[in-house]
């Protein structure tokens, strides 16, 4: 699953080499219902598209200090549009 947001292009795409044991986040923009919970819980990792409120992933690999909030965002997402990959 790739992030469809243009804002994600500056970050590593899936398949690109990343450090081991790094958390990787993917979002499914087709499932997203724009409830906004991820932005409230983890604003350094998630944003919303101005046009439709749909999730925009700011970084696929959150810095360690944002991992807990990103994980919480995934757990509370009502449409289960956020996936956390621990690799």
């Amino acid at each position, binding site marked *: 699953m790739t992030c469809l947001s243009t804002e994600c292009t500056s970050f590593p795409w899936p398949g690109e080499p990343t450090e081991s044991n790094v958390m990787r986040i993917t979002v499914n923009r087709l499932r997203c219902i*724009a*409830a906004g919970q991820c932005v409230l819980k983890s604003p350094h990792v998630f944003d*919303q*598209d*101005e*046009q439709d409120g749909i999730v925009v992933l700011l970084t696929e690999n959150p810095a360690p200090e944002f991992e807990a909030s990103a994980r919480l965002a995934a*757990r509370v997402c*009502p*449409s289960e549009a956020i996936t956390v990959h621990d690799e």
Partner: protein
Amino acid sequence: MSQTVAELAYPMSRTKPFNPPDGYADLREHEPFARVRLWDGTYPYLLTKFDDIRAVLSNPQFSCEPNREGFPHVFEGRMVADKADRSFLRLDNPEHDRLRRMVTKEFTVRRIEQLTPRIEESMDRLITQYSQLPQGADFVEHFSAPLPTEIITFLLGIPYEDHQFFHEATRIQFGSKSTPPEVRKSLDDLFNYLDALITRKDREPQDDIVSRLVVEQLKPGHVDRLTLINIVRLLLSAGHQTTQNMTALGVLTLLQHPDQLALIKSNPEMIPGAVEELLRFSSVLHVGARRVALEDIDVNGKLVKAGEGVICSIPAANRDPDLFPDPDRLDVERDAARHVAFGFGIHQCLGQVLARAELRIVYGSLFNRLPNLRLAVPFEKLRFRHDMFVYGVHELPLAW
């Protein structure tokens, strides 16, 4: 056992105003898929476990469309309104997402942040006006009802002066004792009102949600007029009714838990967490959420057959001790983030960012502006909204 279970009537009554009906804890432990009897003689399941409720609400094979056979109707009058509802609240996908996305941009975190000064302005003015009234004035009538109504009418572009009309419509359409003819008449009046509003916005679009929906969605033919009326009706009723009741019930809850109130007064950084805990604790959507199975579905090991109705009790889920230890205790310091007070799945509340902003602003300021705020009548005299689709207090006389 099955006999007794079959005789459980729903909705059940509460013995303690802040707690869900006593029977829920027992059902959660012994009968998490209980059969309950509704007014029309149907027997849907009542679900009381957090995990089961989350599983149902996130499963697209459970439909929320009220015209399907087996959908649970909890009040006769509400059935009429639900069956007439063509908003995305009562539609499955793919149509749900298509219609919901017409308005999601209006309620993003950024848009609501921009709205904060407007909410604060309303709140400050309403507190000032309220404090000039005689002691014992009704906090619901003079504060918790006008505040969210001012904000949602501002956003939609509906004249605030008409608030008595649509407050009355909400009272009829969401009351347990309303008769079908009363509800039909009220729906007709409200639809005609909104139809005229849309005509005005079509003629002279302004900077508001209804105008944008008319220009961007109705005119190019992305949505038909009746559906648009339904969407605006949903935004209007959900935009004032739920927050109004959550605001007043939350204030009452804090007044009755002075140690918790003292904590948030001296630690304003605790307000966002306290809002989540109050949402969990209060769960004002106290009947529902309701679904009907479209096929045979396994829910955590329990088979629900096609056509069977399911009532997912939001208050029960939010008091599940597996998720929230000592669940009947109000604890503003607990981690309540996973509550389902706004529902779960694709129908989770569209306006939750706005609701949270309003609640944070009110709970963060009210008790500092009026530091001696207190109940003006004995607690036992309060009338709780047992008889309404959205729980709360009918009146809240306070002194300050």
